[in-house]
């Protein structure tokens, strides 16, 4: 699905990712954990193609295609989804028109016919229900005046609607209480179908109680320094990230 090799990337003049390797097969859930400043969010931005996040070297093969050779919207149309840590407010564009445009752009890219208004609405209603967002959210501006939790649930709603091949969840747990966390996790789990892959980026182990990963990677200073199974997340929970510094000095 996604194969990243020796990725170096910088934001402005600072190199953040320094030789990152990651291999994700269809249906797998990979958790990426790490302290603040490790480059967790940068990874999502680089993979999605955000301006200002430049690849210095290395490669990323996404489903047989060179990811870094594609525009932002082409990556999305190819099935890459990024759930934002801080979803953007667009007050003048309604969720409805935003999602309709987006869903149909994806469908067009897959060679499918555009959804009719009725079909779209049906799908949107189901997705809203899954993440417990009231329907009138669709009429409001994109993320406008949403609480932090509502924004995060809206991201998951979008993921459900867009049916990506690979979803990167950038700290989808930050700022959520336990109830909201469960709603987000339930939404994500409902999309695990053995084919769709996930990268779950998180600072804390908490989310991984609800979304069980196949692999856990520890990112530090722009590199994956340790990989393991779900038990690795528990270790982090118990001992924090202090051992990273010890490792460095040793």
């Amino acid at each position, binding site marked *: 699905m996604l194969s990243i090799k020796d990725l170096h990337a910088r934001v402005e003049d600072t190199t953040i990712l320094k030789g990152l390797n990651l291999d994700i097969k269809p249906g797998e859930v990979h958790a990426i954990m790490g302290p603040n400043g490790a480059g967790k969010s940068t990874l999502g931005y680089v993979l999605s193609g955000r301006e200002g996040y430049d690849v210095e070297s290395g490669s990323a093969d996404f489903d047989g295609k060179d990811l870094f050779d594609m525009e932002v*919207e082409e990556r999305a149309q190819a099935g890459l989804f990024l759930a934002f840590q801080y979803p*953007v407010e667009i007050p*003048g564009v309604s969720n409805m028109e*935003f999602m309709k*445009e987006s869903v149909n752009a994806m469908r067009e890219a897959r060679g499918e016919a555009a959804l009719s208004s009725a079909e779209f609405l049906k799908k949107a209603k189901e997705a809203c229900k899954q993440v417990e967002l009231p329907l009138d959210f669709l009429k409001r501006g994109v993320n406008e005046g949403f609480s932090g939790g509502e924004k995060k649930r809206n991201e998951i709603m979008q993921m459900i609607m867009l049916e990506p091949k690979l979803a990167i969840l950038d700290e989808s747990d930050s700022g959520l209480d336990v109830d909201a966390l469960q709603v987000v996790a339930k939404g994500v789990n409902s999309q695990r179908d053995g084919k769709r892959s996930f990268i779950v980026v998180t600072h804390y182990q908490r989310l991984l109680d609800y979304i069980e990963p196949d692999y856990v990677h520890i990112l530090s200073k722009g590199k994956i320094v340790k990989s393991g199974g779900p038990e690795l997340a528990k270790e982090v929970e118990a001992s924090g990230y202090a051992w990273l510094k010890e490792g460095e000095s040793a």
Partner: protein
Amino acid sequence: MSQWLAHVIERAANVDDWLSPVRANALAELKQKQWPGRRTEAWRYTSLHKVADLALKTSSQAVAEAPQVNGLNSIDLVFVDGRLSTDIAHLQLPEGIRIAALDAKSDAAEALFANIKPAHHLFGLVNDVLAQQGIVIDVAEGAQVEQPIRIVNVSTNGIESHQRTLVRVGQGAKATIIEHGVGNEQSLNTVFAEYDIADRASLEHYRLALQEDQAIHVGGSHFRLHNESKLNSTLVGYGSQLTRLDVDIEHAGEHAFAKFNNIYLLAPHEHFDLHSTIEHAQPNGTTEENARGIIGDKAKAVFNGRIHIHRHAQKTLAELNNRNLLLSRGAQINTKPELEIYADDVQCAHGATVAEIDEEALYYMLTRGIDKQQALVMLNFGFVQELLFQMPNKALADWLQPILRQRFERMMEQK
């Protein structure tokens, strides 16, 4: 002096009705007026050379239909070239509202005519002396009128016309008034409206100045707010050959609230000029004014927004913001937000910007697979659509949205 204005003054002598004494005062003022040039502050960026020698017919036999607004369910009062074509005697009116023609003498008309609108507006004076037809709407104390009243002005080819609207909203009453103007052929149409909003009364107001192309439209909406009254007004304007609107909102009572949103959308070569003046004459008033415009190629917009807080008007809250989006290098905006504050305990903010695309919002849309071109259309239109979303009347907003969207998409193609 322009030929046209000289002719107006001549014609004014022939107007004889119950308003003649008031019209005489206006005529005296008008005779004192200089024809505005580049050095006239109120007309600095809007040249009147297209009006100066204009000689159109002043009477019309035209028959025209008012544009229908689906789902609005309004009481429509239709003027074609300034002539009332609706049979107002047979209207089904909700309780508490009276509608009369201007030529019938009434208390309301007498109290309102040229009493709310400041006398300094040149074309307001022209309207004072020439507008023989108009409508007077009187909403009784306490009446809660849900059904909107729509006053439509249709201008047809080759005609000059003048129409007047007078509205009194009684104490604690509630009403919705829509001023809706259309016309795209060569014409000159002035429409001035005066509103008195009594204590605790509430007015929802819309002015759709949808004159375009060859039309010339000059007008104003003027409001006086009494104690604890509320005004929620939305102005939507195109450019036309020349569209000039003056809006005055006077906080004459305490604790009054005014929300005033403006949207202007200028096709190539159009000209739009909005001057708004908010007078905070009393303490504890609130004003929120937001103006957003998108300006097409070789079109020119002028925005002058003034908030004047008098010495006595303590605890005033006032915000004025103007944002503009220029679609090409040939598009022009002259914007001047002005705050004049003479009280020391107030909260005010004002600003004007020429907007650029929000890169973060664009990136967000791209990550959702939306093509860049389409994302830009959505974001740019979203800029004004945000104010459409704030319109309390959803039927009107839903009707306007696709019309404005289409106009905008044509503007994008023509840049």
